[in-house]
């Protein structure tokens, strides 16, 4: 489509109008981030008075000084890395072998095992039984519980299984001739050939872990174990309700808004750093593999 020549004046007008509209949409997607960044660098007074629109007003680092001086902030930041890295590794360790086994034709009951996995996409016991189960398993309030409890899901397994199934048998024949067992075939043939699909699944795991807050909030009681997202929620909730804090604002160089904005900026930065590296995997149509079952 892109290579085609423009045909008429109508086409030209259409293309230009389209570019302008997309531009507007893209900028309005971007705007909230710019706004939040501007608020985070503004003085509390300017932010509270609603003076910040596009750029910082009374440029100051006061909100960041307040946020970065809280040990709880650093603790929760570290926790988020623990959950994200630990959780993603745990997911891959379970999902890759599982998807491989489910893709093998010689597996007895293959249809049945695939159904066991796929059924959970259509029917789910729900929040309460899942919660009670986690409690019965003794997985409340622990790093391990949060990591293992959300390690798998049907979508990722099916996505990867479909990719494994699409790899022609000829690729593994040479390895079989050399007497490779299943573990070696998976590790030396399938994993290297499936890099884009594994990268996609890894990305999904990382995003889910980095952003997850609900179950962390529900399952963790110990303040020293909470991830950044739960900490941020607490800050937003307590700051805005805290009369005492509100009264100190008259003298403080920061406000509820600037502190919240500063935490948001700190939390988004790692996402922005890895975003360009993973972005190239989005457009490959791999996503469809999972959707089509």
């Amino acid at each position, binding site marked *: 489509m892109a290579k*085609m020549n423009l*045909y008429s004046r*109508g*086409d030209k007008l259409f*293309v230009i109008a389209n*570019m302008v509209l*997309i531009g507007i949409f893209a900028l*309005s*997607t971007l705007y*909230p981030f710019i*706004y*939040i960044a501007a*608020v985070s660098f503004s003085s509390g007074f300017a932010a509270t*008075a*609603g003076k910040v*629109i596009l750029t910082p007003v009374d440029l100051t680092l006061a909100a960041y000084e307040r946020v970065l001086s809280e040990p709880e902030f650093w603790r929760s930041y570290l926790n988020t890395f623990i959950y994200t890295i630990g959780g993603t590794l745990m997911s891959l360790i*379970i999902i890759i*072998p*599982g998807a491989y*086994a*489910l893709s093998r034709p*010689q*597996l*007895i009951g293959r249809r049945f095992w695939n159904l066991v*996995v*796929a059924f*959970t996409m*259509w*029917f789910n*016991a*729900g*929040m*309460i*039984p*899942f*919660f009670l*189960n986690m409690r019965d*398993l003794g997985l409340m309030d622990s790093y391990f519980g949060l990591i*293992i*409890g959300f*390690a*798998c899901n049907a979508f990722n397994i099916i996505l990867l299984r479909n990719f494994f199934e699409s790899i022609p048998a000829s690729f593994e024949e040479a390895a079989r001739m050399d007497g490779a*067992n299943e*573990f070696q075939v998976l590790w030396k043939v399938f994993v290297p050939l499936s890099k884009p699909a594994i990268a996609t699944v890894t990305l999904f795991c990382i995003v889910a872990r*980095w*952003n*997850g*807050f609900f179950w962390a909030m529900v399952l963790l009681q110990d303040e020293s174990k909470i991830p950044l997202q*739960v900490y*941020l*929620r607490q800050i*937003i909730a307590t700051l805005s309700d805290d009369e005492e804090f509100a009264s100190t604002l008259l003298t403080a160089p920061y*406000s509820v*808004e600037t502190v919240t*904005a500063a935490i*948001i900026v700190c939390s*988004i930065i790692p996402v922005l750093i890895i975003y*360009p590296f993973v972005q190239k995997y989005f457009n490959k149509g791999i996503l*469809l593999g999972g959707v*089509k079952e």
Partner: protein
Amino acid sequence: MQKKLAWFLQHMRREWQIYVLLAPTIIWFILFLYKPMYGLQIAFKDYSIFRGIAGSPWVGFEHFQTLFESDTFVRALKNTVIISALSMMFGFPMPIILALMFNEILNQTYKKTAQTLVYLPHFISTVIIAGIVVTAFSPSAGIVNTIIGWFGIEPIYFLTKPEWFRPIFIGSGIWQEAGFSSIVFLAAIAGVNPSLYESAVVDGASRWQMMWKITLPSIMPTIIIMLIIRIGNILEIGFELVILLYQPATYQTADVINTFIYRQGLQGGQYDVAAAAGLFNAVVAFVLVMTANTISRRVSRTSLW
């Protein structure tokens, strides 16, 4: 029998490694997704923590009766369907329109840059989204009130106004997901046979016409699949964002089934009633997705499985 057993043993001796690879996945699914299904029986029991799931006495459909006699649950059910239908109405066409528009951009750098920007919010945590919304709509400091102030409108405390909850919730959902959801449709567009466009150009078709007459019909199967998934998930609302944005003042328009379950069960400790609400939710969702799929198979020969 003997023969089958011998064959099975031989198979296991040769292929045991596959079962070793499969075991962690199956064990995980049983432990974390199927065991809770066993626990669902508390929806029909007078559950007490001390007696446990198996030991609690049966009460039949009592909890379901309680639910449907409770105004709060009925309201949550109504809100769920309304919010879901509204976000489908406004949210579902957006990614399709975006994909069609992206496809018409000739300058690749411009296209890539715009895509990078609109995909980004998908990777941002719900808590952050809520933080942005709370800041932007704040009565004193928020940009929204600043802007309406230019037109002489008094500041509005949006997040305490029931009539504003749904527009804000649905709007932030579109802002977050419309871009990323367009990927699926872009992938479908990439699969359209180029010769269709070539012959259309020969016939003197404009780009606008080609978009309507070739691209859109070609991606119809994908649109239908996505619509089925969406309808099947009509009871699934991004309730994390609801929990973060709603407050007692807006419950009347904001409270959905999952937030109801969260408050009743996890906060209020009424596990059995909350589990009943969850079971109702799950069964209706299951029926919906199966029905949608059957209809789609009949109508268009496009189905999920």
